[in-house]
């Protein structure tokens, strides 16, 4: 049965997005520009024709390359972070903000001895973005521990391997041990032990550094919204349960082997992860005062599994997360990395209501996307990063024009890069944005 969009809940979230509480715009014109942009997003999501196609390149570390700031500086020097983002937004005037928090606080990661990633100047060159270091941070025989109590498993099993600073957290018992007086004293003992106290002190230090970072980041984003009228396109974040396991817990190789060796454990763990993923998406979007929940899709792409396995392992729990978010008045934004040419028939699921999701594609045939998703969901993406790096402005202008001619005519469409943009020629990105604004006007 098709889930119903909760009209009032969603309208309240839309209202908060288009009229951000407490926001003081620099001028009525800027406020007007901000609202016009959000209205274009809302129209596209609602499968209407906006005033014009929203142009929303997905800026990764590109703003820093453009402004002559290294990725290292972006993660450590918040003045430079702000300088580069401001320059990028001012010069390119995209319709959506490249939010500053996604670049992360290098100092916090250093304090915590974060092992899951290498970041600029910390395992990869200062000129390179952060990259995940694949490993089995969750071991093959730990599914039952995860299924039994995800939070306890994260605190005592998984996170102590991810953060060196938390390596002694297994000494702490599960919080659910603490039930009644005669047995409560024992649960508190670990907090008196020097290794645990050391870990807690380190966490507090990391927390202070995180506060310093988020203060700077929110100021950067707030100023850009207030002075340039550029809204954020995303408010929250969550993940597909299969990717939660496959990306940063078991790792790509291990999750693929688990699919043969212990398929039922994967399925049971994902069931457990579904409500956590809905909760994460809902809380983060509520905090972000923006109904769009970003969900990057990784390990269900073409080639990564068969359609049968996609229907068994990837889609059911992702769909449950999508529906859970929709029921909370939110708009799931599926960022489809790689190709989904084999999956289009599956994702256009009759249980998902029309006008409730955004789908951004990379290497998927956009005419097929239009054929499948048109009239059902807002879609976009596909401008190749390779072209933005190695192509010529005229080529990009043609590509964008053709794309808009082919698939944008009925509305419900946003123009975006296929993948996260780290490297490009500025004239090429200008060509993409200008072409989108020129050819994307609906008459």
């Amino acid at each position: 049965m098709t889930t119903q969009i909760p009209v009032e809940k969603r309208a309240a979230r839309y209202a908060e997005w288009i009229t951000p509480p407490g926001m003081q715009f620099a001028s009525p014109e800027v406020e007007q520009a901000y609202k016009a942009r959000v209205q274009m997003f809302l129209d596209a999501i609602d499968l209407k024709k906006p005033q014009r196609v929203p142009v929303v390149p997905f800026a990764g570390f590109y703003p820093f390359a453009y402004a002559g700031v290294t990725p290292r500086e972006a993660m450590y020097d918040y003045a430079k972070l702000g300088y580069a983002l401001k320059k990028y937004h001012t010069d390119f005037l995209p319709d959506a903000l490249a939010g500053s928090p996604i670049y992360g606080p290098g100092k916090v990661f250093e304090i915590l001895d974060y092992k899951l990633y290498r970041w600029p100047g910390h395992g990869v060159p200062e000129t390179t973005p952060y990259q995940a270091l694949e490993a089995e941070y969750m071991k093959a025989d730990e599914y039952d521990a995860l299924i039994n109590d995800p939070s306890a498993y994260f605190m005592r099993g998984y996170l102590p391997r991810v953060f060196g600073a938390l390596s002694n957290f297994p000494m702490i018992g599960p919080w659910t041990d603490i039930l009644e007086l005669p047995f409560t004293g024992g649960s508190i003992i670990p907090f008196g032990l020097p290794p645990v106290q050391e870990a807690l002190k380190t966490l507090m230090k990391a927390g202070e550094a995180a506060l310093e970072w988020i203060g700077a980041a929110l100021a950067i984003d707030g100023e850009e919204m207030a002075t340039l009228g550029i809204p954020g396109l995303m408010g929250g974040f969550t993940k597909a349960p299969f990717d939660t396991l496959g990306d940063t817990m078991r790792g790509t190789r291990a999750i693929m082997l688990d699919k043969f060796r212990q398929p039922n454990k994967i399925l049971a763990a994902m069931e457990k992860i579904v409500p956590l993923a809905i909760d994460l998406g809902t809380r983060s979007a509520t905090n972000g005062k923006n109904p769009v929940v970003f969900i990057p899709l990784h390990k269900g792409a073409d080639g990564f599994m068969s359609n049968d396995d996609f229907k068994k392992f990837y889609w059911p729990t992702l769909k449950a997360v999508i529906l859970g978010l929709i029921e909370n008045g939110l708009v799931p934004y599926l960022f489809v990395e790689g190709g989904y040419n084999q999956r289009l028939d599956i994702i256009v699921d009759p249980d998902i209501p029309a006008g409730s999701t955004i789908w951004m594609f990379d290497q998927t045939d956009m005419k097929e996307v239009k054929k499948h998703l048109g009239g059902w969901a807002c879609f976009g993406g596909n401008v190749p990063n390779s072209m933005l790096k190695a192509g010529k402005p005229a080529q990009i202008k043609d590509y964008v024009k053709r794309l808009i001619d082919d698939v944008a005519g009925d509305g419900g469409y946003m123009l975006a890069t296929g993948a996260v943009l780290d490297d490009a020629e500025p004239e090429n990105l200008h060509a993409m944005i200008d072409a989108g604004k020129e050819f994307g006007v609906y008459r």
Partner: protein
Amino acid sequence: MNALVEAITDMREEDAVRTANEMLDRGTSPIEVLESCREAMGIIGQRFEAGDCFVPELILAGEILRQISDVVKPNVTQASDVKKIGRVVIGTVQGDIHDIGKDIVTFMLDVNGFEVKDLGVDVPMAKFVEAVKDFKPQVVGLSGFLTLAYDPMKNTIKAMRDAGFTGKVMIGGGQIDEQIRQYAGADGYGKDAMAAVALAKGWIGA
């Protein structure tokens, strides 16, 4: 198709390893066991090219082969001098630490008869230059997942050419296409591991 080939191509891991052990116990020569593994991988490679099996199957097959060769190799008295059909140097370019795609390509080149020197990830240009001098490959494979791998690929190819390397260079990764092949000055690019095998075989005339 013998029972071992069947077990491997059906992705029955335990059966495959047990069958290999039973064959050895019955006195089947280790070379013959490895031959069956190769036959199975040939079939899996064809299925992959046809879109009937996918990366997880390649990874599992690799895992099965590893377990079987752990058992077989000590039993091989002479070096199992299967003639290698060509030499390939492979690595992920500087600044990029992604290894999964590269590892699958390495494995598929290996089971298809190439001698592969894998330089690992985040490989500086100088290391590629040194490797083409020492190892004298006919083919070099450059891997990169990030769009920031484009320039390191281009620079690495130039450095190898400047050092006199005259063999072929192929590139691969999630954001690699014909535009980047031209930009980087590579001879070919591939979308997956079997494409890499086809390119390398085509170039050496195998």
